[in-house]
């Protein structure tokens, strides 16, 4: 499903964000991406949904080289991928319902389908009592779940989550992880970037560990 071949990413200043990273993630796999801050986890994720391109090497997602794909294909790649951003990226002027429905509207689903899917995913994430609230009116955990709902509403093949439990208390973090496990059990490939070692140990899934942009380990925790 996802293949990194000797991927290096250099920005103008400082050391490379990724340095000669090769990794394979199979369809339906649940993988943790770990490492300290600045290890290159976010860059790794960005390459997958083509928010960034490698300086050298190749990133293949769903049989397509993301660096060389024409610009008009990028939206269609992104429709296969749901992303939960570390900073949530919610729209403050839209309600909980609108924030999630927005993703379905963008890909041109029929209005009825938009509503049905949005209600379904919000119910699944326990946000159906918050439909008309604005992001600032809900808790951090609920904002996190809004971001997850938006990533899931288009039923992606791949789910990427960048530090999804960073702002949550342990119980809520556990709940979110169990949700990801559930999503994964339905066939979605899940990649979670986190530096929470306890969480990784508890889940017992494959780990790709990065440090200073280098791959330092790829094994089951």
């Amino acid at each position, binding site marked *: 499903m996802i293949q990194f071949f000797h991927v290096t990413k250099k920005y103008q200043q400082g050391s490379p964000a990724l340095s000669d990273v090769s990794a394979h993630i199979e369809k339906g796999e649940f993988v943790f991406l770990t490492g300290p801050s600045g290890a290159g986890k976010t860059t790794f994720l960005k390459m997958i*949904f083509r*928010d960034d391109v490698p300086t050298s090497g190749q990133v293949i997602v769903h049989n397509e080289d993301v660096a060389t794909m024409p*610009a*008009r294909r990028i*939206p*269609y*790649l*992104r*429709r296969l991928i749901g*992303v939960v951003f570390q900073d949530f*990226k919610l*729209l403050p002027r839209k309600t909980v319902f609108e924030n999630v429905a*927005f*993703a379905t*509207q*963008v*890909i*041109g689903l*029929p*209005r009825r389908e938009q509503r049905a899917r949005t209600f379904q995913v919000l119910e699944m994430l326990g946000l159906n009592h918050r439909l008309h609230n604005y992001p600032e009116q809900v808790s951090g955990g609920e904002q996190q779940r809004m971001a997850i709902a*938006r990533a899931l509403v*288009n039923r992606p093949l791949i789910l990427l989550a960048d530090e999804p439990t960073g702002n949550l208390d342990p119980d809520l973090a556990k709940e979110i992880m169990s949700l990801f496990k559930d999503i994964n059990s339905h066939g979605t490939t899940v990649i979670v970037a986190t530096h929470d070692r306890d969480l990784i140990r508890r889940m017992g899934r494959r780990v790709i560990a990065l440090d200073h942009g280098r791959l330092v380990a790829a094994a089951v925790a």
Partner: protein
Amino acid sequence: MPRLLRALQHCLREAWDGLWRNPALSTLAAASIGISLYVLGLFLLLAFNLGRFVDTLGKEMQVQVYLKEEITPADLKTLRAEFSSDPAIEVVRFVSKTDARLRFERDFPSLRDLPERVGGNPFPASFDLEIRDADRNPDALDRITKTYQKAPGVEEVRYDRGWTERLVGLVDLVRRGGLGLGILLAGAALVTVGAVVQLTVLARREEIEIMKLVGATAAFIRGPFLLAAAVQGLAGGVIALAGLYVTHRMVERTVVFTTNPFMTIVAGRFLPAQASAALAAGGAALGIVAAILSLRRAGTF
């Protein structure tokens, strides 16, 4: 509902939202296009009316071929045949010496005894030639003059070349001046509308970023901006037309208009429907161009 229709619906809704989210900015964009098109329209109106005047004058303008006293009936017949077969000549009218004298007496009744005093009839016979519309220009008239100047029995060929050239030149000058000034103002309008689009893009940058990340196509993102700019441009065009109409009516009602023939010439009629429609459509086009340039700068193209 088909996907395309849904995309169009989204485009309309978002464009409408965009226009009303900041009415002051939308008004500013429409007004700047309106002002540039108003000035362009003023020159168009002037050129249109001057052009009409030249046409009218041209219709009245004739080429006179004065004949020698000693012209033979055979030469006269040949000349008439040549005029009749010339594609540039629409009507051929022969004016005999007697007709010429009668015409003089009719046009200048106070001088009707002048021919008697100079000893008979000093007026030469002539042909009055009415020229077809397409040939009523200095070059074609020159050709006609040269062709018949040397013909047997012809004394002189005349037409009022100076006036024609000056008027055609004036219309051309007005058109060019209007176009130049219009382009200059359109440039200023492009900058204003572009700035308005950029401000809107800036205000919605978070939304645009998320749209991109969840798989919105470029057309889906740009469509509403282009449509809103086209609406602003069209509104500008309509403002310009309304302003032109009001100006025209005000000029029409002034005393100067009724007493000064020049005013009748320069502001006789309002712009024809096609020119008015083109002006409004030009506004919409200006809006779209400004939006494309601005979205390109903002990195959405």
